[in-house]
């Protein structure tokens, strides 16, 4: 990547695929190519088959749920109606999930951008220590946080409240965001800031007016990854709520009840699973290249 100063498109998502591959395997013998295609096929089936089964199961009629053919015959949306049956409180749970995950994402990004900038750009003693420390906290076991906080929140009356879901979720979302953002900020050429500062900016202004706009794609990617993590959260929501009004969707879906009582209503559960997954999948598919860059940013490139 050339470090052309002031060429914003250069600083977007880091390149994930060098073009040299094209030449690499063009001269492969035929059987190798077929082996490769077979391998790709296996990967696709491996990743997609279970998901496909969820979708198909959700589109059967509830009475056909144990069918094993590959297409629903006849297709039906009854499971989706059942998922939103009043007893399941799924609509409310979806709202809670959106609200909690959204708030966590916004709060975390505001805080993380500041810290990530400091860790990526400023020179000060103990920088690596601070970064290691923040990353280390992301590995803190959820249960070790949930148990003392449950006692605390019981004492101060926070059980069944949004803040009891949002605040603990920052424990994993914040380090994650800092980690990815540091990697993104490090990729941006330092000359940009220096140029801005020669033009009379303070470092803070250089950050606000030059770095931040250019880092927007990285920030956006981080937002998606943090949102996915917060959306998937389970143990906090399970511990801190016992009323449906505050349950998030991941918890609510485990409390689905069937018409007959003891049976697990797999049809409507699969439908709810599809509803919980599809918005994320759409985002992921649209921004897949960016997301891959973000996910690998901390681990591989920085």
């Amino acid at each position: 990547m050339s470090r052309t100063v002031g060429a914003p498109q250069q600083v977007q998502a880091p390149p994930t695929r060098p073009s040299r591959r094209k030449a690499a395997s063009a001269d492969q013998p035929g059987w190798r190519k077929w082996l490769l295609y077979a391998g790709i096929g296996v990967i696709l089936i491996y990743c997609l088959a279970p998901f496909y089964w969820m979708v198909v199961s959700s589109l059967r009629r509830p009475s056909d749920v144990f069918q094993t053919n590959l297409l629903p015959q006849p297709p039906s949306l009854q499971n989706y109606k059942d998922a939103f049956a009043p007893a399941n409180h799924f609509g409310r749970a979806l709202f809670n999930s959106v609200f909690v995950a959204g708030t966590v994402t916004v709060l975390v990004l505001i805080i993380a951008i500041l810290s990530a900038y400091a860790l990526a750009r400023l020179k000060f003693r103990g920088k690596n220590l601070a970064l290691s420390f923040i990353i280390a906290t992301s590995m803190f076991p959820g249960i070790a946080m949930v148990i003392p906080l449950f006692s605390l929140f019981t004492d101060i009356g926070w059980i069944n409240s949004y803040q009891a879901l949002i605040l603990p979720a920052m424990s994993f979302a914040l380090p994650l965001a800092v980690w990815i953002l540091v990697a993104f900020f490090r990729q941006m050429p330092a000359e940009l800031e220096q140029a801005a500062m020669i033009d009379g900016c303070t470092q803070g202004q250089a950050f606000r007016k030059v770095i931040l706009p250019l880092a927007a794609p990285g920030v956006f990617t981080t937002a998606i990854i943090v949102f996915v993590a917060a959306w998937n959260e389970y143990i906090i929501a399970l511990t801190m709520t016992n009323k449906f009004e505050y349950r998030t969707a991941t918890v609510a879906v485990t409390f689905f009840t069937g018409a007959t009582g003891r049976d697990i209503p797999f049809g409507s559960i699969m439908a709810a699973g599809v509803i919980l997954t599809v918005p994320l999948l759409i985002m992921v598919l649209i921004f897949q290249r960016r997301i891959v860059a973000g996910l690998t940013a901390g681990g591989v490139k920085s």
Partner: protein
Amino acid sequence: MATIEAPPTTPPAQEAPKRSIEDQRRLAAGLLSPTVLVLALVIGYPIIAGIRQSLFSTSQEVDPSGFVIEGEQFVGLDNYTAVFSGEAGERFWNAFYNTTFFTVVCVAIEVVIGVAMALIMNKALRGKGLIRASILVPWAIPTVVSALLWRWIFDANGIANAIINQQILWSTDGWQAKAAVIIADTWKTAPFIGLLVLAGLQVIPNEVYEAAKIDGATAFQQFRAITLPLVRPALLVAVLFRILDNLRMFDLPYVLVGPGKPSVETISILAFLENNNTRFGPAAAYAVLLFLYVVLVAYAFVKLLGADVIGEAREKTPKPAKGQRGLRPIARGDTP
């Protein structure tokens, strides 16, 4: 860049563009303080409160209306010594064994599958977008949903039994429940490892392979002598994070198989159930022990294998001179 109209409060910019060390430090402290504050609240406080709580015993009395009678007593290390004796000890060690077993087996399988996936993806010419998109599908599915999905697949009348034409009660208990958890976990996270390894593979310059080919190296030799050492840093970080993630495994066995099943009870589940039963002291003790276990494993991993989590080595690697891109340790600051 647009010229910047300095607001009146801003100090005039006559100082040199390189700010002094002192200024940078003050700015850094200011920028880091919100993060430190939040983490102190949601990580620091639980560590201290958890240790304290683990030294107390709450009265287990529940009054007729279902409320817990307050009665906290200092019991010293009793909650910990219980781990080494009696029924509670047996249950803890079973959970400890399960946690370790899941971690070792899952991560081992995931690394093998993940590396294989990455090697295939790296060779793929067409359909890269499709592969990448499908690899992100398991990642994007919430763990709870995937647990429910696999519970459905492994239902007694489900598709898994239909395919292998057996009547296995997967989600009841025993080895089959363990297998179900391992399969479900592997499905969700092996592609993720594949993704990280692929990113590591893609920064290996092709010339290295060509040189090896000229020297007569076989494909396997190339894999061992070039690919593996060069993706090692990326792989190590991925493996470390997968290990630490699996040590705290909760959602998957809890939802896929259910609470109170000894064959899949992890330390997290045990602590959660104890907390639910208002046995807060032991619950906190188990959580503290899990925390220490995680710290120990992470420390050993970083010290013994040198996993470079923060990319500090890469920072320090000097930028190579132009055109000189040989076999130096991967310095990923400079993507080609």
